[in-house]
């Protein structure tokens, strides 16, 4: 694992340098980390607690715990993974206090997470010569270059992610938003690579389905940067 090479940590000094500077009480280094990571941490915290305000407090408490624990950090995981583990523990405690039931027991896949992720009606039925093959191919989407600029596409994706069950949202947030590897997610959430893949698979298929529906409704209209309200 090479934490430096991971998406999302670009532009930061190496862990070794960061930890050294933090231990030397370098305030600029601390501010840099807070500014770079707090947004993603808040998003993850939001999956555990009831409100945005609670999530902000979880982030704040996490950073305080990081300050207190800095001298104990041994570098066995990346700095960011270590911080995220503290975040998850802090968020779990908080959600228990709030009487929510998100915590770890419910992070495991359930029966609902198995079974087809694409509507079986999209495929030819048994007995057909081409049984199991697409009845009709998925329609092409606008190019990524076009959709990347579209605020509306982002809103659709954000809404779809928000509608996911907590366990799926937590995993897809870490994997696809934060860019963690499956091994790192295992360290942070203590959930096996196989189990998190079940959740990630379902979450991505769901969000893809929502995008497919969206693109079908705006079919033939150009999707571009100038997103018409």
């Amino acid at each position, binding site marked *: 694992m090479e934490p430096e090479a991971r998406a999302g940590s670009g532009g930061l000094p190496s862990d070794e340098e960061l930890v050294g500077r933090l231990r030397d009480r370098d305030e600029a280094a601390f501010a840099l980390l807070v500014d770079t990571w707090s947004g993603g941490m808040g998003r993850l915290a939001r999956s555990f607690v009831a409100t945005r305000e609670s999530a*902000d407090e979880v*982030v704040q408490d996490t950073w305080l715990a990081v300050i207190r624990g800095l001298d104990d950090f041994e570098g066995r995981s990346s700095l960011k993974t270590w911080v995220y583990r503290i975040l998850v523990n802090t968020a779990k405690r908080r959600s228990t206090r709030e009487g929510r039931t998100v915590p770890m027991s419910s992070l495991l896949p359930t029966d609902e997470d198995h079974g087809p992720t*694409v509507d079986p009606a999209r495929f030819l039925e048994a007995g057909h010569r081409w049984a199991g093959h697409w009845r009709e191919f998925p329609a092409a989407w606008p190019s990524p270059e076009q959709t990347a600029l579209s605020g509306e596409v982002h809103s659709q994706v954000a809404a779809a992610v928000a509608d996911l069950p907590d366990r799926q949202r937590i995993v897809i947030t870490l994997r696809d938003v934060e860019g963690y590897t499956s091994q790192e997610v295992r360290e942070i959430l203590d959930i096996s690579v196989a189990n998190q893949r079940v959740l990630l698979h379902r979450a991505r298929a769901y969000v893809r389905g929502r995008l497919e529906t969206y693109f079908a409704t705006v079919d033939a209209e150009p999707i571009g940067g100038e997103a018409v309200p």
Partner: protein
Amino acid sequence: MSDLDCNEFVELVTAFLDGALDAETERRFVDHLAFCDGCDTYLDQIRQTAKTIGSLSPEALPEASRQALLDAFRNWKR
């Protein structure tokens, strides 16, 4: 005959993108991909979905919380 059907293919995309398929299954996956435009499109859309999710912008910490943290760091005693 070990060819995959499309409805099996779509359930393997995440494992494929993680590089987690065993060699034999990966070979069948790639063989299928080579001749099925529908599955090629599907895999591409899953990639595009993951990429779009990755470009969601995080919410910033409220300024008051940020300032409180910087204060806490400044006053941190060994």
